[in-house]
Each structure stands twice: as C-alpha cells, then as structure tokens.
C-alpha cells in the first residue's frame, strides 16, 4: 500500500474503528502532503548541539499524590459505555496476541 495514499488512511481509520468518506480521505491526502513538506522544511534546520526539549517549561515539578483511595467507580458505571459486557467483565472478540 502506497504510503499516505487514500487506501492507507482508510486502513488507518478502519483500525481506529471509524470510516472515512471518499472526500474526507482525499482531503487528508492533500493536507498530509503539505504537512510533509513543512516537516521537511524543518528538517533543513541545523540542530547540532541543541538539547531536545520535551516539555514546554524547563523546571522540574515535585508534586506526588499521597497513597489514598479517593475515587472508585461501581462496576455498573465502569461498564456503562462498553459495547458488550457480561458478569461484570468487558467482552471483546477473542484476542490472543
């Protein structure tokens, strides 16, 4: 499958459990080629010796939560959005990696 083609994005959408219309798929293909161009432009910048920055601030934090049980759902609430459940369990098609 050609990278960043319509078929490629349709397949990705399918894996994430939603469908794309033909127009939506085409729009993404078009936008993606612009994005790739922009990334390539960024790649031309020489970053030798520049430390990677991960977080938008430099200072480390210090907060940690105390080991207290403060919020728990009932099984009923936990399962509320599950497409399928049984005996308190979430049910999926058999998945064995």
């Amino acid at each position, binding site marked *: 499958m050609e990278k960043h083609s319509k078929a490629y994005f349709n397949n990705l959408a399918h894996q994430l459990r939603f469908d794309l219309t033909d127009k939506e798929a085409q729009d993404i293909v078009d936008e993606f080629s612009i994005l790739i161009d922009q990334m390539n432009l960024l790649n031309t910048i020489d970053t030798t010796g520049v430390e990677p920055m991960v977080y938008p601030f430099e200072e*480390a934090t210090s907060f*940690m939560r105390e*080991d207290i049980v403060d*919020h728990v*759902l009932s099984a009923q609430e*936990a399962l509320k959005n599950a497409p399928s459940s049984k005996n*308190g369990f979430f049910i*999926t098609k058999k*998945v*064995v990696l």
Partner: protein
Amino acid sequence: MNYETVIGIEIHCELKTKSKMFSGAPVSYGAQPNTCVNEIDLGHPGTLPSLNKEAVRKALQACMALNLKIDPLIRFDRKNYYYADLPKGFQITQQFHPIGSSGYIDIDTAEGPLRVRINRLHMEEDTAKQYHVEEESWIDFNRAGTPLVEIVSEADMRSASQAMAYVDKLRNILMYLDVTDGKMEEGSLRCDINISLRPEGTEAFGTKTEIKNINSISNIEKAVSSEIIRQKALLEAGKEVQQATRRYDDVAKDTVMMRLKEGSVDYKYFPEPNIPPIQLSQVWIDEIRNSLPELPEARALRYKTLGLNEYDIKQLVQNKALSDFFDALIPSIKNVKLAANWCCGDILSALSQKQLEEKNYQLKLSELREMINALHDQAISSKQAKDIFPHLLKGENYASIVDELKIVMVSEHSSLLKLVEETLDENPQSILDYHGGKDRALGFLVGQLMKKSKGQANPAISNQLLKTELDKRKP
C-alpha cells in the same frame, strides 16, 4: 560438544500500595471484576495521571537494597501498543530514564557464591487481566494501573540452580523491604527467564527463548532445566533454536511454545506528555535510605552473633514471617537456640505460612516464651512441653495449662531416689544387662521410671541418679 547456558531474568513485581500508580482507585486482589477502577485506569478521555508517592518510595527502597544507582529526576515514557489489556493504547513506563541502574546482588549456590549484576529497575503500571473464553475475551481492569517495578538482570547466570537462587534471593529482599507480597502463585511477582546456549569457550550469544508463567520458586529450576535439555537436543541434532516465548507447563514438566518472535515490535516510545519530570529531594531519599528495614544478610549476621547455627539461620532467614515470629519471641528468652528449634519445628508445622504472615493465630508469644524458659530450666520435660503446646496453640495460658494437666516435675532428690530404687528392684535382669555392656538396658530403665512417675520425673536428674545407683549395684 559441551554447551554453556546463558540466563538473564526480568522480574515484574507489584508494589504493595493502597491505591494505583496513577489513580486513586484501590489496589486489590480477588475483588469482583471491574470494581477497583476509575476513569484514569480505564483510559477515559480527558483524564490525567497523578504519580503515587508511596509507589516511588517503595521503588527507591528496592533500588537501595539492590545496590542500584538512583536517578532522582523521575521521568516516564509511553510504550504504544494496541491491545485489549491496555485501554489507553499505551503503557506508562520508564524506558529512557529508569529510576535505578547498574546494581547487583550476591547469591549463594551449590556452585559457589555469585554476583549477579542488575541492569535496571524501572517503574510502570500493570495491565488488565484477560480470560479467554471460547470465542470471547473477558477483561477485568482491576489490575490495570497497579504499581509495578520491573527488575532486569544482566545475563550473568549459567545454570538452573543459579537462576532459582537469584529469584529466591531477590524475592526475599523485596519481602524484607515489605514492598511487595511476593506471591508468585497470584502473579504479584512474575519472572520472565531468557535462556540461550552457546558452545563452551565462545563469546557470541546463541538464539534465546523466553519462559513465562512460572508460578513458584521451585518451578524455576524445573523450567530452566527442561529448557536447557530441549535446546541442547536441538543443537546436537544440528537444528536451530527458534526465538520464541514459551511457558512452563507444570503438568507436562516441560516448556510449551506460546508464540514465535518475528522481529522486534516497534513500541514507538516517547516521553509521557501528561507527567512532567518530577525532581525527588535528596533529603527525602536520604530519609528513606536511613530507615531501610533490616535485610536478610544483616539478619543472618545478627543471628550468628546470637549463637545460632548455619542451618537454623538459613531456615529462619529465608522465611521472613517465621523469622519475624522468632524475633518477637526472643526478648527475655533464656535459651535462644531452643527457641529457634521450636520455631523451625513445632511452630512451622502448627501454623500455616498465611497465619504467620498475617499474624493470625491464638497462640500467645508470652506464654510460649514461658514454656520454653521452663523447658530450659528443666522445670518441665520435652515430653511435657509437647503435651502443653497444643493447649498454647488454642490461646490458653501456660500457668493454667500446667494446673489443668497437673503437670509436675519431680526434681527433689529423695523422691527421685525412691523411684529409682523401686525401678531397679523390679528389674533385676536389666541391672545385669547394663553391667553386661547392653546400653539399651539404661534406656529401658529410664522408660520404666518415667512410666512409674507418670512422666513427672526430671529426666536429666533421674538419668544421673539411675547411673549412680546402677554402679552401686554392680554384681
């Protein structure tokens, strides 16, 4: 050709905390499915993880006991994979900056002492538990988010017994720290063992297999031994070992293929954006280091100074719950060795491991102590102690048991002498046998005397008296 076995071990250990690694939902084992979860564990949109301080404290304790170098700047990363046991689609772990690195433990094996280097210890969250039922998978998220540490050894072990000794020692250390309950059968301590063989004298590693699902310390040795035999047979037949994950089947007593490893999965690791780096204060780290509990090696040394022998020391130290029981018993005990004997013998067979661990028994330590001291003072005999002990187990007091069972120890010289003389008068043949060189005759006479006294004669004094009187009656 001779082959050398190379073994490295990864251990996943659940930390003993009240709440999850990143959420305030409870940690529990054996609860009804999906009753110990909240939105964070279920990976609902808009939720943010918040790090459990106690989990970090326990991870630090483990690092210290395993001689690991600590990175005080806590950073987490995402391990991305799409699978039903991870509702978020990623696991929060420490891929790039583990909290501990470059440590070791020293183990004792039949082949001599060995230092096993530990590559790293990192924190992460456990995944959900799945049950595969016919065409469905049933998912329970109670375990999801439970704090874990993963401890990765270097490939320093060369035999099944070394692998077993390593896990046993590591587990014992973690139990002493009280950072985990260490129950392999419940999965709170799980080990993955990597095994490969190479021709003796060569450096390059052979193709390895990984064994999972080992539910007890003793099965480690069995699993590794059978896997070594299997790989060796393949290599000797000119075949190749396939890189695969296998599990140990306790019934078949062999490893069974789970899945082949085809190349490595790309987990697309990147720094976890929802948890900014957390700087641990040196004061806090020092506090934890200074209040580290006594570890097995230190305890063994302490027992040595108490005068216990190697066997007793080993028996006690390898069982923390029993050893804790012994420690609680020995203040103001008159004979520590005798106390150790009782702990490793009668106590161990009368109380279950669970009872010891949960301190759930009716036996009162003060009463057991009183009995052991009485035994030491020869106020009661070993036989009488065995009669008293079952009552102690029921929570009764020593003094009232002695009263009730009418336990008397006759140590008074004139009373004993009378008993001795009567016994000898009634058994003239035994006197002849004794002087004829039959040692058994003395044992028989002691037995007769104890019977006559209804078990109340002081055995040590009676024995001595019997000998003296026998000598007087030498024909």
